[in-house]
């Protein structure tokens, strides 16, 4: 049964710097990179190429020794120019200098009918060796799925409610057949249903309009209504022992294209957003693109932070850093390393807050877009305020109790309080509104790792 779910809890963070709905003319990036740190739960990354090797788009360059079947491949063809390591030789980035014309590794090609007869095993083999597999995320834990498992269902969120999120209607224009093929392939992988969750408040983009083989559910409400974890909770929640997979719409298209065209195509439309960008908009590039061409000459001022992804779940990167594997936007915001005289009590209409404590007036102007910098607006404190997380997390979960269970490493409590249903992105909004400034996403990941490796 498809469902319509109205969510009331949550908070939309409205920021200045929405991407204009057009392809902006940025110079193409020259280098691209794969960052093992993008993959939560990757335990022992092993590089299979050396500096100076040439690769094609789809050539394996990396795998996790804990799950050797799954290959991580080059997004573009070109030369491996650097394998960057950090402290204790931790693998950080594998950089590729792109050819001017991309050449592709070739994989098996299918048409509509031959795709139907494709077996589950063959599909998995093609997906794991070609590099599209990491698009599939396993819940619980939010790690790359294990091809040996069979999930009880697959969930796809067809909209993104994060701050300044890209519009799938724009980025996935003309991808209808790829998306459908992707769904057909994914259908072979699960014993259950594929849930496609669309936004009830907006017109459904063409790419999601007439998809076969899925159950369509509608969601409405403020962020995090677009988070797939919230949607799973309301459709078919994850209990202990359950396993479901999630895929982003882009991932579905990439999988579909692999089978229809026989190539690993990492081309991707990402959005350039944020209050400090002179020019916002969409740009067609490849996964793992270097952001230098998007940032250089495109800044209102120089004291800024570039974020790969959105401001709730993204990572800080350098001005010549690389867009993350799963990110579909970059956000440029001001750095906030300044002191503010009596900043903790001064009334302000320009500071964004979910709360209404004395002097915080942003609740008076709900439609306004804000410039928000990276200042924490206060120091870390123990949990004091109660009931706030519950107002932004539309799940039957008690976040504070869960976080305390994680901090005290109480395994039974964590399980009983529903840690299997959450990954970082789901509690990101709690972390944003927390008056005590705790790093809730980090705390949650610690809890997940405790359970995973115990």
């Amino acid at each position: 049964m498809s469902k319509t779910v109205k969510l009331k809890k949550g908070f939309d963070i409205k920021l200045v710097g929405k991407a204009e709905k057009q392809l902006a003319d940025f110079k193409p990036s020259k280098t691209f990179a794969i960052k093992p740190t993008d993959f939560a739960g990757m335990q022992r990354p092993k590089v299979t190429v050396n500096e100076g090797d040439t690769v094609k788009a789809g050539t394996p360059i990396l795998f996790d020794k804990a799950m050797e079947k799954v290959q991580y491949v080059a997004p573009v063809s070109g030369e491996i120019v650097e394998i960057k390591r950090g402290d204790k030789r931790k693998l950080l980035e594998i950089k590729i200098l792109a050819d001017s014309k991309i050449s592709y590794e070739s994989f098996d090609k299918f048409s509509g009918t031959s795709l139907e007869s494709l077996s589950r095993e063959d599909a998995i083999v093609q997906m794991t060796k070609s590099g599209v597999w990491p698009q599939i995320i396993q819940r619980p834990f939010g790690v790359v799925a294990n091809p040996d498992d069979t999930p009880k269902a697959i969930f796809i969120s067809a909209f993104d409610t994060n701050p300044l999120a890209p519009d799938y209607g724009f980025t996935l224009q003309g991808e209808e057949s790829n998306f459908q093929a992707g769904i057909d392939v994914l259908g072979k992988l699960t014993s259950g249903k594929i849930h496609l969750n669309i936004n009830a408040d907006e017109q459904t983009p063409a790419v999601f309009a007439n998809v076969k083989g899925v159950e369509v559910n509608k969601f409405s409400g403020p962020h995090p209504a677009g988070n797939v974890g919230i949607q799973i909770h309301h459709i078919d929640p994850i209990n202990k022992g359950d396993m479901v997979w999630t895929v982003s719409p882009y991932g579905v298209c990439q999988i579909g294209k692999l089978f229809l065209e026989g190539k690993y195509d990492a081309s991707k439309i990402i959005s350039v957003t944020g209050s400090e960008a002179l020019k916002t908009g969409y740009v067609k590039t490849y996964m793992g693109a270097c952001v230098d061409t998007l940032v250089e000459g495109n800044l209102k001022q120089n004291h800024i932070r570039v974020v790969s992804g959105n401001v709730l779940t993204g990572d800080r990167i350098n001005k010549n850093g690389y867009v993350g594997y799963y990110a579909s936007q970059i956000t440029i915001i001001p750095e906030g390393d300044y002191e503010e005289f009596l900043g903790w009590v001064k009334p302000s209409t320009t500071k964004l807050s979910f709360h209404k404590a004395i002097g915080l007036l942003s609740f008076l102007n709900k439609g306004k877009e804000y410039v928000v910098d990276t200042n924490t607006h206060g120091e870390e404190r123990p949990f004091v305020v109660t009931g706030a997380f519950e107002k932004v997390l539309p799940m039957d979960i008690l976040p504070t109790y869960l976080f305390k269970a994680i901090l005290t490493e109480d395994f039974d409590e964590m399980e009983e309080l529903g840690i299997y249903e959450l990954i970082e992105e789901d509690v990101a909004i709690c972390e944003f509104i927390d008056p005590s400034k705790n790093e809730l996403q980090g705390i949650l990941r610690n809890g997940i790792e405790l359970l995973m490796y115990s």
Partner: protein
Amino acid sequence: MKALQNLFDNLKPNFEKGGKWEKFHTLYEGHRTIAFAPDLITGSRGTQIKDAVDLKRVMITVVIAMIPALLFGIFNVGHQHFLATGMDATFFDKVLIGLISVLPILIVSYAIGLGTEFTFCVIRNHPISEGFLVTGMLIALVMPPNVPLWQVALATIFAVVIGKEVFGGTGMNILNVAMTARAFLYFAYPAQISGDQVWTYLGDKTPVDGFSGATALAVAYTAGVDGEPVTKALAEHNTLIGDGLYSFSNLFMGLIPGSIGETSTLMALIGAVILIGTGVASWKIIVSGFAGAYAMGLILNIFAVNEYMAMAPQYHWVMGGLAFGIVFMATDPVSAAQTEAGKWIYGLLIGVLTVIIRVTNPAYPEGIMLAVLFMNVFAPLIDYYVVKANKKRRLQRATV
């Protein structure tokens, strides 16, 4: 402001590792973050932006919500002084007397409390938390105007050390810190915080002949014992210093003897409006607290065996410190129930218990203090069952 920033910057090396005041680093940070919101930025992972709220702002909101009660309390202490001594006085005379009585208590409460807190922060090397901003004000407001200052100091130290710091500081305490201070005095020095003589500030003056300093609660209790209707007893109380001292409207306004900030139901309600409007306090606790008191009043009416039990329940709202206690004490998020369902039960039981203690227990004319402390202790139990129900829902789902 640059000058102040420079001053802090110049002092900074002394407080850094290896500096001569290294141990007092936390004091330096504490003061600097009060003058200037800190220049901390978000990490490379996790949310890249944060809400503008912080705990300091939450706490100062509560302090602001208490200011009407404080100002009215200052006036009322003077007002009661001149009523009792039978002298005419202007508004300013009353405020002046009020200031003479209240300011020293407020100053002692803050100075001693912050001093204790700072000492602990330095010893434990943890950051100075803003919790005492609220506690310091609360302690002063729940003291009788005649309380000796050394007792305020002692109670404050006891509350901060035993009530809070031994549990790990702000956010970790089990009991409401200000209530702990008051309960300490109540049991350690009952002569100065109970009876009929402590609620009116007299200074060096003597009251008019026949003056009784009994509170409305004490009058009501005595009426119950004597078999006289409570409203009649209240109306006839202290008529020689003016009619209607304990009329319903006077009780509501708070122009009655009592602890400094708790007499006025109106001021507590103004505070409640601020706290609920800003979302800082739980409206569930406040609403259910008043509802519980009213409901218990009604139940006692049904089973009334004396006049106090037969008293109209709305009188419980305006007598004593019920309103102040429910609005400012019961809603302390740390010591209250922390689940949303739990807050309803917690508030309700505070109201119920307060009325039971008032009406049935001859030793304690006012019940709010003990009710809040009692429910502070029971809040984790309430939460335990709410959390258990949540876990159970999750388990049941699994078997479907």
